């Protein structure tokens, strides 16, 4: 039997081996990656959500737009967990790490021993410390349960306020455009997706969203909620029957920090994704790792980063050559805009517009005269070429 119930169930024997905590893109890829790399020992995967782990990127796009009818893809079919001998514990969260005993405390009260532990516990949505924005008072969008809760609220909903004009907030606005629900996006910064893209790409998407009927307000400070409204610091009332907070995420480092692992903006790791305890690795959204395309360690929130780190750790633990990292890349899909980024730009990096036809936008990002990233809207070929061409910032000895 595969442990797909909503309670913790162990599908294999209780021998120590490799335990992977977190069944998102990084954790699942690592579990199956261990088998692909020839690892024959015990592999146990722990997932806090009930059910079969599945893709999250569609939740804010096709899943929301189709009101939940286009179900997101499971990473692997249920039968494969048995066939590949992945002991999967669904609906089971990590509660504590005893590094001395190499023993984990689980949410069902049981203990689980490990020889090597891979932390792929991800991140959680940032909570705004404002009146009326507590848990249960606002919607969020990170996992399937969040998406289902949002979709359940849509029938009869007239006005939705989205806090934050990052990828998730804008993808939600695009998915709801034309549905009869008036969406207002409230962003504290002066432009959309300011952390991730150039001012030119921000402007392209601001035009797109306003053209789709989204009420996009930039440089506004949210103060509190009142019945039927979000109130800004300047007293402006934004009518809203529901509020979705999409103000970024914070890495889930509490357990790691409590266990004495080095943490900062994520669990700190070396080039091979080892934490400050060599028996414990960290991958995906929770990990702060050296990156060849950045001068300093970075914590990346992307599918490409999660799967690459997972495959590298799997190869290392299986005693196989560790594959070289590739150029980091990201994507977002909002209405008619297919946005792709290759490389790692910082907000202060210079922009050079290479092509701007209205439908297509291509922007190079430069630092010290060197190309560090390419941002493309509706220009797939150039994006894919950049993923082979952008040179690393540094190469470890």
């Amino acid at each position: 039997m595969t442990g797909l119930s909503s309670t913790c169930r162990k599908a294999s024997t209780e021998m120590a081996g490799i335990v992977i905590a977190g069944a998102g893109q990084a954790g699942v890829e690592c579990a199956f990656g261990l088998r692909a790399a020839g690892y024959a020992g015990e592999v146990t995967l722990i997932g806090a959500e009930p059910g079969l782990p599945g893709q999250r990127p569609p939740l804010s796009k096709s899943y929301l737009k189709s009101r939940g009818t286009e179900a997101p893809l499971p990473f692997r079919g249920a039968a494969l967990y048995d066939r590949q001998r992945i002991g999967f514990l669904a609906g089971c969260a990590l509660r504590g790490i005893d590094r001395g005993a190499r023993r984990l405390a689980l949410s069902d009260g049981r203990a689980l021993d490990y020889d090597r532990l891979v932390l792929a516990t991800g991140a959680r949505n940032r909570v705004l410390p404002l009146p009326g924005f507590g848990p249960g008072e606002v919607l969020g969008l990170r996992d399937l349960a969040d998406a289902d809760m949002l979709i359940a609220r849509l029938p009869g909903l007239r006005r939705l306020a989205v806090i934050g004009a990052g990828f998730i907030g804008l993808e939600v606005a695009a998915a709801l455009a034309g549905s009869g629900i008036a969406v207002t996006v409230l962003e504290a910064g002066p432009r959309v997706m300011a952390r991730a893209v150039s001012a030119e790409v921000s402007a392209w998407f601001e035009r797109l969203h306003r053209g789709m009927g989204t009420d996009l307000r930039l440089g506004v400070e949210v103060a509190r909620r009142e019945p039927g409204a979000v109130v800004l610091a300047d007293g402006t009332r934004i009518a809203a029957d529901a509020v979705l907070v999409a103000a970024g995420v914070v890495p889930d480092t509490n357990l790691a920090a409590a266990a004495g692992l080095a943490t900062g903006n994520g669990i700190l790791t070396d080039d091979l994704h080892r934490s400050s305890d060599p028996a414990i690795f960290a991958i995906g959204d929770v990990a702060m790792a050296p990156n060849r395309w950045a001068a300093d360690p970075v914590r990346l929130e992307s599918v490409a980063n999660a799967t690459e780190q997972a495959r590298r750790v799997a190869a290392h633990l299986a005693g196989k050559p560790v594959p070289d990292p590739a150029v980091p890349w990201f994507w977002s899909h909002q209405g008619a805009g297919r946005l792709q980024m290759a490389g790692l730009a910082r907000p202060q990096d210079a922009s050079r517009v290479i092509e701007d036809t209205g439908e297509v936008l291509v922007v190079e990002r430069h630092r010290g005269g060197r190309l560090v990233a390419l941002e493309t809207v509706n220009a797939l070929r150039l994006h894919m070429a950049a993923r082979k061409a952008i040179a690393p910032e540094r190469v470890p000895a």
Partner: protein
Amino acid sequence: MVQVHFVAHDGTRTSVEAEAGTSIMAAAVANGIDGIVGECGGAAMCATCHVYLDPADAARVPDRAEIEEEMLDSAAAEVTGFSRLSCQITLEPGLDGLVVHLPQSQH
């Protein structure tokens, strides 16, 4: 159900059944076919679900859309006239028994 036969680069053949309406990529990933990655979840963003249609089957599969043409340009393995992104092909009863060949690598 629609049956699809995957032929790995080493010649190993695996047959899977999928519900009509799912993509070839989704059928492969759900059934653990090594050699199809589908990293972007079927959004035509990553070109890691590249397959070759069997020449005998090519005529009964709808043509590539422009977005697929563009992404295929940068697939890791050699791109031929039979190359497709398997996330862009939806399985229908008319495709029952389809044979697809897998490239050596998707990265």
